[in-house]
C-alpha cells in the first residue's frame, strides 16, 4: 500500500476518534492537534492496529516523527 492510500484510511480513523476535524497530512504531528495528547496516542495506535490489521513492535510507533513516517511504518508492517 502506498503512503497516500494509508493516509486516506488514516483519515477515516481520525474522523472516528477526534472530536474536531483533523486532516491526515504527511507533515502532521501530535503537537498540531489539541486533542492528541499522550493518552489519545494510546487509543489511536490501538484503533490503527485494528483498522489495518497490523501489529507494531515494541517502541517503533514512538520513533515516527510525523504522520508520513507513521504511514510508512503501517505500510511496512502490512507486508507479509
Amino acid at each position, binding site marked *: 500500500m502506498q503512503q497516500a492510500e494509508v493516509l486516506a484510511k488514516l483519515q477515516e480513523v481520525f474522523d472516528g476518534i477526534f*472530536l474536531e476535524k483533523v486532516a491526515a497530512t504527511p507533515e502532521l504531528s501530535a503537537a498540531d492537534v489539541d486533542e492528541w495528547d499522550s493518552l489519545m496516542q494510546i487509543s489511536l495506535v490501538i484503533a490503527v492496529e485494528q483498522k489495518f490489521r497490523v501489529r507494531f513492535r515494541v517502541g517503533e510507533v514512538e520513533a515516527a516523527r510525523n504522520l508520513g513516517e507513521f504511514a510508512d511504518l503501517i505500510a511496512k508492517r502490512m507486508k507479509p
Partner: protein
Amino acid sequence: MPDRPINDAELKSLALSGDATFWGHLVARSRQATSFSELFFLSTLRKKAKLYAPGSVQPRLRLALIGGYNLYPLHELVEHLLAIRGIECERFLGAYDNFVSEILDGSSSLYAFRPDLAFILPNASHCRFSGSLLDAVEHQREAAVCAAEHLLNLAQTFTARSGAAAILANLALPGDVDLGSFRSRTLGTDWSFRKAVNLELGLRAPAEVQICDVEFLSARRGISAAADARAWYESKQLGSPDFLVDIAQELSHLIASRKQSPKKVLAIDLDHTLWGGVIAEDGIEGIELGDSSPRGEAFKAFQRYLLGLSQRGVLLAVCSKNDHARAIEVFEKHPEMVVRLEHFAAFKANWDPKSDNLQRIAEELRLGLESFVFADDNPAEIEIVRQFQPLVTGVLLGPDPAEFIVRIQAGRHFEPRTVTEEDLERTAQYRQERRRAELAASVTDMPAYLASLEMRGTIKEFDSLDVPRIGQLIARSNQFNLTTTRRSETEIKALLGRPDYRCFTMRLEDRFGDSGLISVVIARIDGGVFVLDTWLMSCRVLKRQVEDEIMNEIFRLAEVAGCTTVRGIYLPTTKNGIVAEVYEEFGFARTEDSATRREFELEVRKYQVRSTKIDVARRAYAAG
C-alpha cells in the same frame, strides 16, 4: 430497542443530524460491543452527539479509578458504558501504581475528590509467592491468605475513611507455559498462587467490598487474547485493547446494578420453548423433550436452568398461547419435565394477547411490569410485548434450544448481589400467597379472615445480620416505598450506631408460612420532630395490617425519643402511587405539597393506636 444493527456511517449521520433515534442505536451497539475500536468510536460519537443535544443535568456519580496499571483508556470506556446506562460520572484517575499510598494517606487527592465509589485494580504481577517452589503447601497457602487480606484491608481502609463503596478487582492469571505440568503441583508458582489469592479474596471479602472477577473475564476471553506484553511495556496497560472492553463492560454492569433492582419474574412461552413442537398439534407423545434426542436434551437442560433460577428466588410464570388443559397435562404427566406446576408462581395458557396476560400476572403477583423479563422463541410475540408492555424486557430465544440459556444470561437480568434466605424461599412464599387468597375467598369478612391467618410479627431494630436483606429491600422496593431513597449496605451499616436515628424492621409469619423480613423504617430525630426518611414494605403483605403495626411502632418510638410530632415524606415516582394517601389515612395533615415532594405531620399525642390481628413481639430499642 432497535431491531436491526445499523452500520457506522448510518450511526454517525444520525448523531450529527441530532436524530433522536440515535440514542437507542447507540445503547444497543455499545452494550454488545466487544472490540476496543468499536467502543471507542461509539464513545466519541456520543460526545459529538451531545454537542448537538446536551442532555439534562443529573446527579453525577463520583467515580475513582485507582490501581497498579495505567487507567487510561480504560476510564474512557467505563465512562461511555455508564453514560449509555444513564449514569453520568465525575471521575478521578489515580496516578499509575500509586493506589496504596492514595488509600493509606488520609490527605491524598483521592479523598479530597470525595468519591461515591472506587474501582481498585491491583497489579497482578506484583502478587507473587516470595519463598521457594518447594516450601510446604501450608506455608504457601498462608502467604496467599496474607496477600488477599492485604488487598481487602486496603479496600476496607478506603471504605471506612471515605464512606464510599469499593469494587476490588482480583488478579488475571499468567499464560506462561513455563514449568509445564509442575505448575499446578505447588502453590508457589504464579499460576497457582494467584488462583489461591483470588479464591481467598472472594471468600473473605466483606459485603461492602464487591469483587470484579478479572480472572474469570480473562479466562472467558482466553488468557493469550487478554494479555498484551507490548501494551504493558509501552503504556502500562492491564491487557489487550479488547480485554479492556471486557473489564469496562463488567465494571459498568456492576456499578449500574448497584442501584437498579434486578428483575424478579421470568415469564416464558411453552411450545418451542420448554419443549420442541406444539402440544396442541403434536400431543404429549409427539413433543421433543428428554434424553432420547439431542434437541430433547437441550430443552430439558433449559428446564434445568429455569429450575435453578427458581431455586435462587426468580419467579417463573407461564405466558403462552395455548389450550390450558393440554398445557397443564404436560406438566402433570410428561416424565421428562423438570419444571413442574409448583415451580410456577403464575400460569397463563390461553388465547388472549400475551401483553394482556403479562398484565394479569403482574397484578396477581403484585409486582411491577418493569421487574419482568419475557422470553419467547417467536420474534412477533417479542415485538408485540415491546409495543404494548414497553416496561417488560423481551428476550428472543431464537430457533436453537442449545442457545436459550446463553441468550437469557446475556441480558444479566437475574444476578443477585447476595443471595439471601428470602430468595431461596420466594417461590414457596408466592405459593402460600395463592393459598391465602383461596382462604380469603372462602371467608366472608375481612376481620375473620385476618384472625384465621394467625399472624405473628417481630419488630426489631436494625441488626448487622439483617443488613443484606435490608439492602436488598431498599434496592428493590418500588411500589410501597414512600421516598425510594436507595442506600448501599455501607450506608445502612453506618446507621446502626447513630443516636439520632431510629431504624427498625418487621418480619411476619402466619399459619401458611414465613414471609420473612418485609418492612423497613428509617427515622431521623430532628429536635422534637420524628422524620420518616424511609418507609417501605413488600407488596405481598399489603392489607394484612402490617402498616398499622408499623405506624404504632413509629409513634411509640417517637414518644420514647421525646418527640412531639411525626413528619412523613412522600416523594412521588412513576411506581409508588399506591402510597400517595397513606399518611392521610392515618390522620396526618399535609404541610407541604409540590409536584415532587409532599410532607405530612401528626402530633404524637393525637395518634390513636390501631389494634390488629397480628401478635407482635417487639425487640426494637429496648422495648422489652
